[in-house]
């Protein structure tokens, strides 16, 4: 074992698991469609997530059109607005971000970065994608059923989620809950794979403390997801029973539109606890892979080792653990026992400490670096700004008494979009620019990339930064039309219109990005195997794009950590992880 992660060693222990035989595709179908290759599955996950993500993007346009210009668009009424926000939120959080980070980046990068041939259970990994695809189809089918998709808000709070005052009560809510159940089944199959692969299939010399932070982030997020999603699974099954079978898990005795209902004895707050027991870790399930990936982007493009690697790893693990005891900070005004507030405010603010350490270490990595302002680096810088901004407003909402006036206002909407919308998306985009050459063998167009970055970053900031101040003023969320109230000045409407126009432009920039993805596939500059001169194993494959099995005849052997950039005395400003130390000094220290 290596005591100090950044010291390279010659002695490499034998592998824990012997090399594996893979199932090699025998036809076009098993090569490209029902493939068991994690890289193909990763691309399938990514394309599906992007496709449904585009739906969510269009929904956000429609929402912004309504908010910016209420009453102008006759095809958007109150019911549809609620359906749009619900589907937008659920798609973005679960079907886009979770699927993309874990199913997409996880599948592509874990085996390559740990030096494995594939995931340890390739068949189950393939099934994971197909169940995910089914979940997406079930979700999207809600647009075509009578009554349309559910408009319960992405939090799906009962009782309203299954009562007739909420749009989508007929089929929408049933499809939503069924789709979530499917998603969780599919995710569990993939998630077990990611965890076991990281634990069991690392190549010789790849100790845990030599893993790139990308793998640490995805690994920890997956462990969390495996523990958190069951709570949502249970909640979804129970609510489905309440809706379809008339049980009363979450339904107290109530009167709907003057009619006495047959429900009784259930607890709406129980659902909220279950939902947020999943929902808060979910924030970090999205954030931790982003933390990991952005660490590697910054290190590679600043040509400098990540600062404080060990602290970064412990911060990821600490955040992952703490995020399971903060969930009720989403429920300060839910009517739960008020004394919970003391506990959850304290745990929530404590989580700021490991999170702040990560931020410091990112900027300290830039300090005295050799910063190449490539497109991935720009997105990493954009991530730091939006994440710091969104993280700091979290200190408002986490501090129970400050949350009271701000909860359920646009401040909350601005906060979570900044911290778990814009910030992770910055990382997703930066990561695509970074790894696209490995996936396709071609570079994305840089000029288009820079334009894409500036419009996306500045635009998103212009939308969500001022939005906080609408919340401070008191503008509530989930209103299709704010209407008249004494505290609302005309300037509120002006700001809403401004944000809507910017949102349209930011959305168009994403279309430009999609164009770049397709155009560069055919016309992009050939990248070679390691265009960024990076140290991690995925850049050292014999072929680009890597073939099935990743490594040719022999698995790589790892001698050093993932961050040997600009090592003094080294001939180049990076040393790949699989490069043996050149020499041994008399003291036995290796370089």
């Amino acid at each position, binding site marked *: 074992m290596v005591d100090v992660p950044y010291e390279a060693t010659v002695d490499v222990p034998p592998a824990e698991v012997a090399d594996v035989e893979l199932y090699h595709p025998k036809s076009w179908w098993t090569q490209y469609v029902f493939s068991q290759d994690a890289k193909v599955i990763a691309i399938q996950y990514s394309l599906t997530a992007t496709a449904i993500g585009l739906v969510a993007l269009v929904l956000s346009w429609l929402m912004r059109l309504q908010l910016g210009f209420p009453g102008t668009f006759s095809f958007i009424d109150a019911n549809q607005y609620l359906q749009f926000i619900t589907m937008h939120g659920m798609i973005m959080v679960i079907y886009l971000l979770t699927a993309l980070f874990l199913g997409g980046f996880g599948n592509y990068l874990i085996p390559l970065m740990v030096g494995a041939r594939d995931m340890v259970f390739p068949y189950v990994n393939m099934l994971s994608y197909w169940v995910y695809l089914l979940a997406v189809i079930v979700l999207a089918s809600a647009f075509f059923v009578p009554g349309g998709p559910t408009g319960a808000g992405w939090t799906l709070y009962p009782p309203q989620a299954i009562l007739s005052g909420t749009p989508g009560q007929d089929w929408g809510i049933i499809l939503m809950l069924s789709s979530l159940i499917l998603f969780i089944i599919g995710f569990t199959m993939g998630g077990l794979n990611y965890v076991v692969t990281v634990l069991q299939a690392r190549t010789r010399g790849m100790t845990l403390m030599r893993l790139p932070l990308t793998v640490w982030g995805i690994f920890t997020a997956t462990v969390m997801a495996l523990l958190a999603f069951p709570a949502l699974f249970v909640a979804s099954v129970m609510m489905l029973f309440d809706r379809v079978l008339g049980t009363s898990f979450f339904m107290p005795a109530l009167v709907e539109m003057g009619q006495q209902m047959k429900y009784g004895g259930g607890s709406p707050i129980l659902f909220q606890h279950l939902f947020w027991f999943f929902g808060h870790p979910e924030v970090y399930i999205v954030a931790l892979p982003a933390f990991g990936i952005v660490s590697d982007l910054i290190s590679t493009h600043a040509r400098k080792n990540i600062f404080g690697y060990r602290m970064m790893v412990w911060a990821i693990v600490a955040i992952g653990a703490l995020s399971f005891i903060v969930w009720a900070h989403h429920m300060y005004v839910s009517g739960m026992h008020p004394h919970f507030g003391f506990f959850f405010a304290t745990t929530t603010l404590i989580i700021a400490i490991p999170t*702040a350490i990560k931020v410091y270490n990112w900027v300290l990595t830039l300090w005295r670096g050799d910063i190449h302002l490539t497109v991935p680096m720009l997105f990493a810088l954009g991530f730091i700004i939006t994440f710091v901004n969104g993280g700091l407003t979290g200190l408002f909402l986490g501090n129970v008494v400050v949350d009271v006036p701000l909860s359920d206002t646009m401040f909350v909407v601005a906060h979570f979009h900044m911290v778990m919308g814009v910030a992770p998306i910055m990382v997703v985009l930066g990561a695509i620019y970074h790894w696209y050459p490995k996936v396709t063998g071609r570079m994305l167009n840089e000029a288009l990339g820079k334009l894409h970055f500036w419009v996306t970053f500045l635009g998103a900031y212009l939308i969500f930064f001022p939005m906080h101040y609408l919340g401070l003023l008191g503008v509530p969320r989930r209103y299709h039309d704010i209407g008249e109230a004494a505290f609302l000045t005309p300037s509120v409407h002006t700001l809403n219109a401004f944000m809507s126009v910017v949102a349209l432009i930011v959305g168009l920039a994403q279309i430009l990005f999609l164009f770049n993805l397709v155009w560069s596939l055919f016309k992009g500059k050939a990248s070679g195997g390691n265009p960024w001169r990076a140290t991690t194993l995925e850049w050292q494959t014999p072929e680009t794009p890597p073939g099935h099995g990743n490594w040719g005849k022999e698995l790589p052997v790892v001698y050093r950590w993932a961050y040997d950039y600009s090592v003094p005395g080294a001939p180049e400003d990076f040393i790949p992880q699989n490069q043996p130390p050149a020499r041994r000094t008399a003291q036995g220290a290796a370089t």
Partner: protein
Amino acid sequence: MVVAVILLLVAIGSVLFHIYSPWWWTPIATNWSYIDHTINITFWITGVVFFAVIAFMAYCVFRFHHKEGRQAHYNPENKKLEWWLSIGTAIGVAAMLAPGLFVWHQFVTVPADATEVEVMGQQWQWSFRLPGKDGRMGTTDVRNISPENPMGLNRDDPHGQDDVVIESGELHLPVGKPVKVLLRSVDVLHDFYVPEFRAKMDMVPGMVTYFWMTPIRTGTFDVLCAELCGAAHAQMRSKVIVEEDAEYHAWLEQQKTFAELSGRTAVTKATYRPGGK
């Protein structure tokens, strides 16, 4: 260079926007100015951190961007620096949390002399109930709800007979008197939200929630619903009128009690219902 300047401008722009924003909280109307103070403390601490981090980052980009011949410094870790930063952060966090918990303790400790009023939410209107001359409100049950008894009061409870029932009207409150607002819903989640009061709380069917406050200035305030409650969520409005004691009592005198309301409606029903019960 350009990138560094833009990053710095984002930080400066954010601070200027904060200072000159025309969108700021509404003038407070209750005793909860402590909450506003805690928000201000939080703004100061987070604002300093935000500006420092972004400005430092912009400086790094300006100073260390790639040039021919530049080599990055090799510096894996610095335990001392990392610990100092952690301790500094912990102090900043404590400086926000301590006042926050202190004020929360006040928020959840209802003064003994607070009078009770009840707000009931239903899709999509507000109803209010005030205790009658006996100072106590009668019991309720959602199973009692009928067109004649929209708030579901218990007909056999003597304390409920003199309760003042205001169905889908406006709530009046006397200025300067602490009030415990009991919150109830008969169908879905709602949230009694008056921006000027700062305090708010969800209303949950099957249970009674509450918050307390002391109105400190007179005026008419908009009531909104802050918890998504279905299609007409945005239209679920009412008003609270905070007024001097004399005006408040004059208003209270004109309100109907539960006994008056149910007696009268019962008679009307009996007259018009063919066959009768």
